[in-house]
C-alpha cells in the first residue's frame, strides 16, 4: 500500500497506540471523580495537555480538548461571535477555509451575523491589505487558516494577526493541517485562538484541541459539567487525549527532520510527475507551502476517476478535501485560486507522511502516467485537444 492521503488522516504511530491502550481498558477512571483511579486519569489528561501546549508554545491552561478539529473551529467562531455579539456581529474569514470554518461562518450569517470572505491570489495567499480594508468597527473575529489542507499554502498569519490586533479584533487560525508539519508558536504568531486535531499528526480520530489565549472571552460550545475548567463539558475522552498528547510529543521531537525528508520526497514526486505527464498544473504556493502536500491538476480528465484507478493499484490519494467528495462542485479552494471548473475537477492531492518512503514515490511515478493516459484515452477533450494541435 502506498498511502499518500495524510492530509485526510494519518496512520496512528505505534507509540501513540501503546500510550492509549491502557486507558481504554484497565485505567478506565473518570477524571472528574475524587478517588485514585479518577486521579490517575486526571493526571494523564493534564500530562497530555502539557504536551499539546508545548507543540504550539502555549501554556497548558490555554488548551481545551475537544472532540475533533471541526469542533475546535466551531467553538472558536461561535464562541467568540456569541460572546462579543454586543460589540458587533461582523466576522471575516478567507475564502479557502476548511468547511468547518466556512460552514460555521455561513451558519452565523443565517442567524444574523455578517461575514466577509476574503479572496486569495492564484497561489492561495490572503493579502493583509485586503484584511485591513475589510475590518469594520463591528468586526469581532478574523479567522484565517495557517495552512490549507488542499493546496498546502501557508498564510502570513503573523502579519494578518497584527493587522487584526491593530484594530482590536480577535484572531483565530485553523492550524489543523499545519501542526506537526510546521513549527508553531502562538506567541510568535500572536493569535488568540488556534485549532488542532489529533488524527492529522499520527494520533487518534475524535480528539481535537482549541488554544485559547488567557483572557480571551468566549462562550462554550458544549455546556454542562465543569470539565476543561467549564469551557467544554462532557466526560473526557481520556484514551484519545492521552494519544493526542503522545502524538504531540513525538511531532515536536521529530518534526524538524521529518519535514525535510518529506519535502524531498514530495519534490521528487512533483518533479517526476511534471517530467512524465504533459498538461499538468501544480497548484498552491511554490515556496510557502506545507512540506508534504502537492496538488496537481491533470487536464482533460476527472479527479475521482484518477483516485479510483490509483486505488485499484494500491495507491491512495484524494481529490482535495475528503469532506467535499460528495458534491458536484469542484473544490472551493481551487475555484478561489482561479482554476476553471474543468481543471478543478481534474485535480488530485498527494499528501505525504512520515511513513512514506522513496519507493512509494517511485511506485506512484510508475503507475500514474498509465492511469492518466488511460483516462485521457476516454476523454473527448483530450482527443480533441490533440486534434486541434
Amino acid at each position, binding site marked *: 500500500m502506498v498511502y499518500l492521503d495524510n492530509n485526510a488522516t494519518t496512520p496512528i504511530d505505534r507509540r501513540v497506540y501503546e500510550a492509549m491502550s491502557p486507558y481504554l481498558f484497565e485505567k478506565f477512571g473518570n477524571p472528574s471523580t475524587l478517588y485514585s483511579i479518577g486521579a490517575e486519569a486526571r493526571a494523564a489528561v493534564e500530562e497530555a495537555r502539557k504536551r499539546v501546549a508545548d507543540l504550539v508554545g502555549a501554556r497548558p491552561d490555554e488548551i481545551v480538548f475537544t472532540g475533533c478539529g471541526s469542533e475546535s473551529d466551531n467553538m472558536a467562531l461561535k464562541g467568540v461571535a456569541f460572546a462579543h455579539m454586543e460589540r458587533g456581529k461582523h466576522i471575516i474569514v478567507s475564502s479557502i477555509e476548511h468547511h468547518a470554518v466556512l460552514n460555521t461562518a455561513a451558519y452565523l450569517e443565517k442567524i444574523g451575523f455578517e461575514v466577509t470572505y476574503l479572496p486569495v491570489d492564484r497561489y492561495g495567499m490572503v493579502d493583509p491589505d485586503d484584511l485591513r480594508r475589510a475590518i469594520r468597527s463591528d468586526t469581532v473575529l478574523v479567522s484565517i487558516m495557517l495552512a490549507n489542507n488542499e493546496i498546502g499554502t501557508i498564510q502570513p498569519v503573523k502579519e494578518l494577526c497584527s493587522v487584526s490586533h491593530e484594530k482590536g479584533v480577535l484572531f483565530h487560525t485553523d492550524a489543523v493541517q499545519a501542526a506537526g508539519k510546521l513549527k508553531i508558536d502562538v506567541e510568535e504568531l500572536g493569535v488568540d485562538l488556534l485549532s488542532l486535531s489529533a488524527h492529522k499528526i499520527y494520533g487518534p480520530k475524535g480528539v481535537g484541541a482549541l488554544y485559547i489565549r488567557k483572557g480571551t472571552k468566549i462562550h462554550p460550545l458544549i455546556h454542562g459539567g465543569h470539565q476543561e475548567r467549564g469551557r467544554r463539558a462532557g466526560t473526557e475522552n481520556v484514551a484519545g487525549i492521552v494519544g493526542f498528547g503522545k502524538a504531540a510529543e513525538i511531532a515536536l521531537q521529530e518534526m524538524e527532520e521529518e519535514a525535510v525528508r518529506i519535502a524531498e520526497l514530495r519534490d521528487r514526486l512533483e518533479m517526476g510527475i511534471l517530467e512524465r505527464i504533459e498538461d499538468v498544473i501544480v497548484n498552491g504556493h511554490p515556496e510557502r507551502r506545507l512540506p508534504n502536500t502537492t496538488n496537481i491538476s491533470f487536464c482533460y480528465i*476527472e479527479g475521482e476517476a484518477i483516485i479510483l484507478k490509483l486505488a485499484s493499484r494500491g495507491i491512495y490519494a484524494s481529490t482535495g478535501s475528503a469532506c467535499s467528495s460528495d458534491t458536484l462542485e469542484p473544490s472551493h479552494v481551487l475555484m478561489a485560486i482561479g482554476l476553471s471548473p474543468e481543471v478543478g475537477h481534474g485535480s488530485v492531492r498527494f499528501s505525504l507522511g512520515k511513513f512514506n518512503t522513496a519507493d512509494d514515490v517511485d511506485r506512484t511515478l510508475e503507475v500514474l502516467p498509465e492511469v492518466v493516459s488511460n483516462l485521457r484515452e476516454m476523454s473527448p477533450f483530450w482527443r480533441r485537444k490533440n486534434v486541434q494541435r
Partner: protein
Amino acid sequence: MYSDKVIEHFMHPRNVGKIEDADGVGKVGNPVCGDVMWIYIKVKDGKIVDCRFETFGCAAAIASSSVTTEMIKGKTIEEALKITNKAVAEALGGLPPQKMHCSLLAEQGIKAAIEDYMRRRKKGEEKGA
C-alpha cells in the same frame, strides 16, 4: 460506495472511443459539473449496430457510459429510446444517490445521439429528395 458492477465497468470499460463515421453523435453534460459524455452510434436497418463513447467524468459517469453502450448495441431505435436512467443504474447494481445524475446523463446521451441520427437522416432524405 460503488457496487462491484460499477467498479468492473469503470476498470474495464466497454466500447471506448470514437466512431469516425458515426450516424449519430450525442454530446451531453457540462465540464463545469465534472461530467461530459459523447455517445456515438452506427445504425443499420433501424438497429444500432455499433456504439461507442468518450467520457470526461467520474467512475460512475464512465461506468454508466460503458454499460449503456452495451445495453443499446443490437437494439432497435425504438427499444433504445426506452432505456431509462433507472435501467442504467440497475444494470450497474445501483448507484449512490449523489451519482444518480450520471445514469441520467447516459440516458440523455443515447437520446441525443438518436436525435442527431434522426436529424441527419431527415436532412439526407430532404437532400436525397
